[in-house]
């Protein structure tokens, strides 16, 4: 993988619905090499008030060859970084690094793929759907959000999917309920063989669990807080089950894997989602904007600090 760092030019800024902003950025070398599930890390503004780059999934790619390929990102305004990005218009330049991370694993043979997205978390699934279709796979989609305005581009979702099911918690669009309510029925109906999902953690946990119950491979894209995005700071880790010698899995055996380099796409069956994985019928939010402004759910229910090491407060 070759990482690129430089400036791209904004080709256009548009809105999807009243909520989501989209930037199309001319970034040919990223556009030519990026895979679904990978992300770019963007510097949002000048000065040192907010120093860190912000990571964004690649939502769409338009390969135009030569020096014209573009990538598109979509986002909702959460804080200063996304606010700055929403102010950019054509010809503005953005400083970005990418393509970063490990994207979705593609099916090894022709397969029925179910893509499950919640809110803005659905972003990388559109690029994935394009690629899966190009490779001749069947794509079915479940798209959910709290309310209609937070559904990401349902028109394209319907166009890309053989079966597309839309749901909102308040019933303002599609069926009333959460994506997990529709999961088993859709899997049955579409003869799903592989599940891909991106969205808030509780949703990823629930989808993983349903898929695992059916012995289906499940690819989950996580969005952890990242400081560097390229693997040096160790801030973005996810707890992964570790196989013991002899292949037997033990709950107690886990490692922290960097979601920026070993992820952001993980095998959902390897991730320790919470102390207690919610069952598929429990309430599961599919709306990422719920995380804001209250912020990231602080998951203090992750595995406790190991007793045998006394790490310093920082570093």
């Amino acid at each position: 993988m070759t990482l690129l760092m430089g400036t791209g030019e904004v080709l256009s800024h548009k809105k999807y619905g009243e909520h989501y902003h989209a930037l199309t950025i001319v970034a040919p070398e990223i556009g030519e090499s990026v895979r679904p599930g990978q992300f770019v890390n963007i510097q949002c503004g000048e000065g040192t008030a907010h120093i860190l780059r912000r990571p964004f999934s690649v939502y769409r790619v338009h390969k135009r060859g030569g020096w014209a390929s573009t990538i598109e990102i979509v986002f909702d305004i959460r804080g200063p970084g996304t606010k700055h990005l929403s102010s950019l218009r054509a010809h503005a330049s953005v400083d970005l690094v990418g393509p970063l991370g490990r994207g979705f694993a593609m099916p090894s043979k022709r397969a029925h793929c179910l893509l499950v997205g919640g809110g803005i978390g659905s972003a990388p699934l559109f690029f994935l759907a394009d690629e899966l279709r190009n490779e001749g796979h069947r794509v079915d989609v479940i798209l959910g959000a709290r309310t209609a305005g937070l559904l990401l581009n349902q028109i394209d979702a319907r166009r890309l999917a053989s079966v597309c099911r839309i749901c909102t918690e308040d019933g303002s669009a599609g069926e009333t309920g959460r994506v997990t309510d529709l999961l088993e029925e859709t899997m049955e109906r579409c003869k799903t063989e592989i599940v891909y999902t991106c969205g808030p953690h509780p949703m990823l946990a629930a989808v993983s669990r349903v898929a695992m119950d059916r012995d289906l491979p499940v690819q989950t894209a996580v969005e952890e807080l990242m400081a560097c995005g390229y693997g040096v700071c160790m801030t973005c880790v996810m707890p992964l089950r570790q196989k013991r010698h002899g292949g037997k899995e033990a709950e107690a055996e886990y490692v922290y894997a960097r979601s920026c380099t070993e992820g952001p796409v993980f095998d959902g069956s390897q991730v320790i989602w919470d102390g207690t994985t919610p069952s598929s019928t429990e309430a599961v939010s599919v709306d990422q904007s719920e995380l804001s402004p209250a912020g990231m759910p602080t998951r203090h229910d992750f595995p406790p600090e190991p007793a045998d090491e006394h790490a310093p407060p920082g570093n």
Partner: protein
Amino acid sequence: MTIRRATKPPPEENSTDLSVKLGTLELKNPILVASGTYGAGQEGAEFVDLASLGGLIVKSMTLSSWRGKPPPRMCETPSGMLNAIGIQNKGVDHFVQEDYPWLRKRGVTVIASVAGNTVDEFVRVTDKLRTAAQQISALEVNISCPNLEDRDNMFAHSPEATAEVVEGVKASMPRRPVFAKLSPNVTSLTEIAEAALEAGADGLSLINTVFGMSIDVETRRPKLAGTVGGLSGPAIRPVAVRAIHEIHQAFPHVPIIGQGGVGSAADALELMLAGASAVAVGTMNFVNPRSPIQVAKGIADYMRRHGVDSVADLVGAVKLEG
């Protein structure tokens, strides 16, 4: 459109001599990367020629691997960030078997950062480095670690514990310069520095992160799973400048590796004028992995502009009077 291939950085055209000596440690330029902000170099090599760095202070290593703290491990704060990683690392054996040969092959100036929970652990890590990584250029001792034998008080907060660790490490690897990395979270930095120097430290690294905490007011929970973390980035630069100034005034001949909020040549120069002979870029590597190279170039420009012939002439050159 100016996306460049990260693997081909633009050629440097530096004629200015940036070499600097920190006691017996000779560096081709005074700009290093700080421990924990560049891993062991593999990732950064995508963006820069590691051999062109003044040196690479690798992520602190412990006797066996440390898993680290649960997430969330970081949050952004005004002009900086808080982290609570808990020194997640694969242990010294992994370093000597995997990272060190890789770095050697690329001609990188390596400074190994040693950490532990007991004096014995520090010494055993150093023993392994002496046996299997003889060509490292120097050691940095990360004493910002809880001391199991003293109710988890940090070594860096006690002159006695600081001295014991430094003495042990120095005795294990007497032929390599040892830099004690001090914590700013103490009442008297000079007292700790003195203890480290008397125990045989050849130099000091100043500063490690500043204790901090951040609370999500909506959930009323700390933003870090570890509750308290280490503040880094431009926010702490004045703290670093003051600490370096204090120690340089007290021990003018002791070489200091300055660190804390450096992202530009001006930032690095500030630390040097306060008394640092070399400067490590930390948090700002996350934003721009090429910043150490750009900082070094900026220092060369400054030296040309100000008619300075040697980096050494900048060290501690702050004008306090007149």
